[in-house]
């Protein structure tokens, strides 16, 4: 099972790195999805190893949340694009100090 956890950690970190280094809003969002998915993998692996199912239930709710976030995120992306004409998150720098 720790194999799965290590794999999940790898994917999670890749996702985190994606969020940190990428500037395209959509790619950042996709990296976030990667992070959520790695957590899902962890849950499934753990509940499998412990012979439980509550982890699997958790995964389902994560999926729901991911879907909801996708909706909001893409809505924000569209609104943002409309105002700035780009999806570069560095453009979002009006609010500072």
């Amino acid at each position, binding site marked *: 099972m720790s194999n799965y956890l290590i794999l999940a950690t790898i994917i999670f970190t890749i996702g985190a790195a994606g969020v940190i280094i990428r500037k395209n809003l959509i790619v950042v969002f996709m990296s976030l999805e990667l992070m959520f998915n790695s957590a899902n993998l962890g849950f499934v692996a753990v509940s499998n190893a412990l*012979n439980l199912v509550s982890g699997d*239930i958790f995964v389902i709710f994560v999926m729901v949340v991911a879907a909801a976030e996708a909706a909001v995120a893409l809505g924000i992306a569209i609104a943002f694009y409309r105002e700035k004409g780009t999806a570069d998150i560095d453009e979002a720098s009006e609010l500072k100090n």
Partner: protein
Amino acid sequence: MEALFYIFSFIAIFSALMVISMKNPLTSALYLILCFFAFSGFYVMLDMQFLAVMQILVYAGAIMVLVVLVIMILNISKIKRVETDFHQKFIGILISLIIFVEIIFYIINGSQKKSTGIFTGAVIKKIGNTQIIGEFLFTKYTLSFEIASVLLFVAIIGAYIFAKKKF
């Protein structure tokens, strides 16, 4: 099984890396779908076929379609600036690596709880994983389920508000 795990792992890691390194978001999206497929492979290996299906349906199917759609609508592939901020990339990767090493340290040093549950592979196979999930979902986690539905509803309102041009 071992071999299968490593193959899927390789696919997952490779495609994840591609997601974050591809210049064109569309390519990234496609790699992400590939990654999701690898994940559903893991779920099958872990006796959760239902989740594997859900993974394909919800993620690869619904969410990624949405993403691709937005990419196409907005035509974001044309990126104004080239992302060549080496400095920031370096720090970002460094930090991620540190986090990675730290979590791995915890995983290697620690150990999980010993199995005490009753839902062994055999039990799950006997009852069927869909039924188990269903029963749990509608008994113990009813409230969560209801809240999830409200959450989705709110998200829809949100998407509608954001995407709407004007009030």
